[in-house]
């Protein structure tokens, strides 16, 4: 008997048990078909469209800001850094929207899963950009906002050493966070939410998603 024949025999036995279970599921069918459920992606899509619009508005606003503060190199550099940050967030979100349009759960499994995993990768990328930007760019963002709202050059009042120290502290927080997350991601006593954050910060989630996409790209491994 071949191994798959043997499995087929076992499968037939399980199949018979499953068939009995299915007969109890008329209630499930009724409950699902009776409701008109709100599509879960619709909310996410609305938020993403708003995010892209906000990013475009920010880039336009920053260009105007830069033209008005061309005499202050520090503010100009801050505006440039924030523009790069807003563009990266905007592009990543736009890519997410394009992928959502391509998503078809009734399509061939390999291509649907490729799109789904690319969506997860786009989410990770956006989160990474937001985290890096939040830690490294909060001083430039604050300086641009204060200058735009109150016409005050924050850099004229802040010591250069303090600004540089903040940047270095941000870089140290990122490096330390990565080290800690790699060390504790497999810890037995951490909550599901903590594990998820640690898996993201350590890069494990991104690696897993990339590996799965790579496996789908080359359907016959080895």
């Amino acid at each position, binding site marked *: 008997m071949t191994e798959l024949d043997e*499995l087929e025999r076992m499968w037939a036995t399980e199949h018979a048990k499953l068939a009995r279970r299915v007969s109890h599921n008329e209630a499930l069918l009724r409950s699902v078909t009776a409701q008109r459920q709100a599509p879960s992606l619709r909310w996410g899509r609305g938020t993403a469209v708003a995010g892209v619009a906000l990013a475009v508005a920010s880039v336009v606003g920053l260009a105007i800001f830069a033209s008005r503060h061309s005499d202050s190199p520090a503010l100009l550099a801050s505006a440039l850094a924030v523009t790069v940050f807003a563009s990266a967030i905007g592009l990543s979100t736009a890519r997410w929207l394009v992928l959502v349009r391509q998503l078809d759960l009734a*399509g061939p499994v390999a291509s649907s899963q490729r799109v789904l995993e690319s969506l997860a990768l786009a989410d990770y990328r956006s989160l990474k950009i937001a985290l890096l930007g939040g830690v490294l760019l909060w001083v430039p963002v604050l300086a641009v906002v204060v200058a735009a709202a109150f016409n005050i050059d924050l850099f004229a009042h802040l010591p250069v050493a303090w600004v540089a120290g903040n940047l270095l502290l941000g870089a140290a927080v990122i490096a330390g966070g990565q080290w800690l997350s790699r060390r504790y991601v497999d810890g037995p006593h951490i909550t599901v939410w903590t594990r998820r954050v640690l898996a993201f910060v350590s890069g494990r989630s991104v690696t897993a998603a990339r590996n799965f996409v790579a496996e789908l790209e080359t359907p016959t491994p080895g």
Partner: protein
Amino acid sequence: MVWETRTAVTDDKFKALLAEHLGLVHRVAYTYCRDVTERDDVAQEIVTHLWRCRAQYDGRQASTWFYRVAINVAISYFRREVRRSGRTEPFDQHAATLGDVATTAAHHDSMVLRSCIAELGEMDRGLTLLHLDGNSHAVIAEILGISASNVATRLTRIRVAMRRRLDSNSSTQVQGSEQ
């Protein structure tokens, strides 16, 4: 994703099709889940998605369409759970298979089958399920979106892995009975 409710078949016809394919839904859920509770959750999620996606159904090749949506939803659920909990081992050795195992032999077979499937990757699990359900290589290729030769190659590799698994299982059994 298309959400409109205008369909090639009426809602009543689709409900009848859904009822007809509930066995398929449960087999897919069985293939990707560890225990009975999780399996019921996945079955519910699959049925929900099938209902939501009904506008995309063109009225032809019902089982291909149902398999595609069901496997896509099950893999997504499985990967989401792995991401959420960090678990890599999907099969719970201590969980009862269907809660109605009558004999030790049947229980053993059930465990062997589930552990064999649990050792496969997400795509290979779907492929094994489609093969055990009696689909041809061409149909499996159409559902999974890979070539028929690829299906054959993957099945050969799965056979080798299964043989190894069943051999190790029977040697464990022999050792157990000798003791």
